[in-house]
């Protein structure tokens, strides 16, 4: 009760810039996050594209040919060491499926708040045959061991085959699943 007068005042401006108008945000890019994205751009040049630089989040878009090299640099050069989350996002209008890695760090205390959002896109097939069509990406399992089950999940949910992944088996879906991968946008759930 006594201390609620001084502290919230200095807290509120911190959270606000994230949600405010984009023109404010572009003026004051966070310094530390900008450095991280600059290092990646410096190393790879126009092979990478910085999607966004927010507070504690750096977004990098990479093509599927370069994702392995970029990930290797992120681990060795920038001290990120584990993947928190691997999400697939289906974009039927672009004919692509994006796979988004959220990479964090345990070993480097300065990076504890940071998450590097590495996004890459695989070609999308109209009639998917999971594992046997062109929807393929190189696996990052040899760089970040923690993606193993995540990539298995992406494979069954989106049909993205990870080349070089040692264990591309089904994980969550029933054994007799014969439909297309369910998280694609063209899979409609019943009654909707």
């Amino acid at each position, binding site marked *: 009760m006594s201390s*609620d007068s001084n502290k*919230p005042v200095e807290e509120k401006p911190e959270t606000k810039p994230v*949600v405010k108008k984009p023109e404010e945000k572009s003026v004051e890019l966070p310094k530390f996050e900008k450095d991280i994205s600059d290092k990646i751009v410096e190393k790879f040049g126009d092979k990478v594209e910085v999607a966004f630089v927010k507070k504690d989040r750096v977004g990098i878009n990479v093509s599927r040919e370069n994702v392995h090299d970029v990930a290797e640099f992120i681990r060795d050069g920038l001290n990120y060491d584990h993947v928190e989350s691997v999400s697939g996002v289906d974009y039927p209008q672009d004919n692509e499926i994006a796979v*988004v890695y959220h990479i964090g760090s345990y070993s480097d205390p300065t990076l504890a708040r940071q998450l590097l959002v590495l996004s890459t896109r695989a070609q999308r097939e109209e009639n998917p045959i999971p594992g046997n069509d062109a929807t393929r990406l190189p696996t990052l399992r*040899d760089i970040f061991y923690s993606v193993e089950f995540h990539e298995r999940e992406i494979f069954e949910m989106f049909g993205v085959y990870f080349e070089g992944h040692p264990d591309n088996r089904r994980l969550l879906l029933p054994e007799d699943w014969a439909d297309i991968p369910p998280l694609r946008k063209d899979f409609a*759930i019943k009654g909707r």
Partner: protein
Amino acid sequence: MTTELPADIQSSSSEIQTDKPSSNWLPPGLALQKVDERIMTLNVGPQHPGSGHMRLIVQIDGDYIVACDPDPGYVHRGEEKMAEYRNYITNIPHLERPVIHDSCNMLYPYVLGVEELLGIEVPERAKYVRVIAAELNRCIYIMYWLAIYGIFLGHSTMFMWPTGDRELLIDLMEKMTGARVTHSHFIPGGVRNDLPANFEEVCLRQVNYFEKRIKEYAAVFYDNPILISRTQNTGVLSRQDAIRLGVTGSVLRASGIDFDVRKKEPYDVYDELDIQSIVMTEGDAYARSKIPWLDMMDSCNIIRQALQKMPKSGSVRVKLKPNPKGKGLDTVYKRVESGRGSLGCYIVSDGKPEPYRLKLSVPSFRNLIALPYLLKGEKLGNMPSVYWSLNYWPVEADR
């Protein structure tokens, strides 16, 4: 950073997989065909007192586990697909269902993410109410986890005590939200209802009693020589492997890495509260089972601080438009520290009232990766204690 994987990790998974590309869509279990006469393949679960809602395919040589292949997915209910068909408000009830006894923490990252997408600022009092609810829920979750751990180890007292004591906190949550376990209390813009009258006093009294009560568990459970002999030096996860496997929560902190999202990336008012993140360095099942218990005492401490610092009056939610929309193409990833570890929610919005894609990055699923590695070389009898010490809740992992 070292680049190569440890030999143990590589061999543990290379033994169970087949190398033929045609086996990609084989169901789990059928790939385990390379067995010689000494090796026996056991199917543990889904109906098994020591497995819960999942199946473990375990290969044993005599009494020792050679390989283990977890087969989750028995509770895969398609939460992420369903979320794409519901708007931001109607998503709330079903997104908390993966962990109903930790439902406030389960909703927390989603609510924070939606607030960031919609650009909502939450009132100060609501933030404190949220912290109190989240910490109470963490205790409720851990008590249930502890009860099941007692069952897994054949320790019936440890089932009865926590299930009885957690009702105290469930009563508090019921007073606060109106429901026993599925609260749906957090909404974008605050919490659903203000605290009832006289809540602070009751809460303080209950929490004090609860803390006194859980301290007694040491005598019956944590200092029990039988428990110690069953869990110490069992399923040891070293610091390096914990980093590499990307585990989280109590599993990570038992391996000597100080990582607690409440401390490292504070959300709401956690930066104003004094949080100890408990770290142990042993990395065995005993440390993994002790850390949640110590966490509960820390939670009691946080609740007391929050009750003290909370503004005594004020609104607890901002009014939302009927069908809130995101502002164009936007993505947000928020994480919180749940009862099991860092829980993330990734929302992709395209300016419609429904999320374009919603992904829950759940700690149970991340901890599952460690299971085949930890079980390798263990005795079969230690399997339940290692399995449940991973703080694993199958419903959450399958989503």
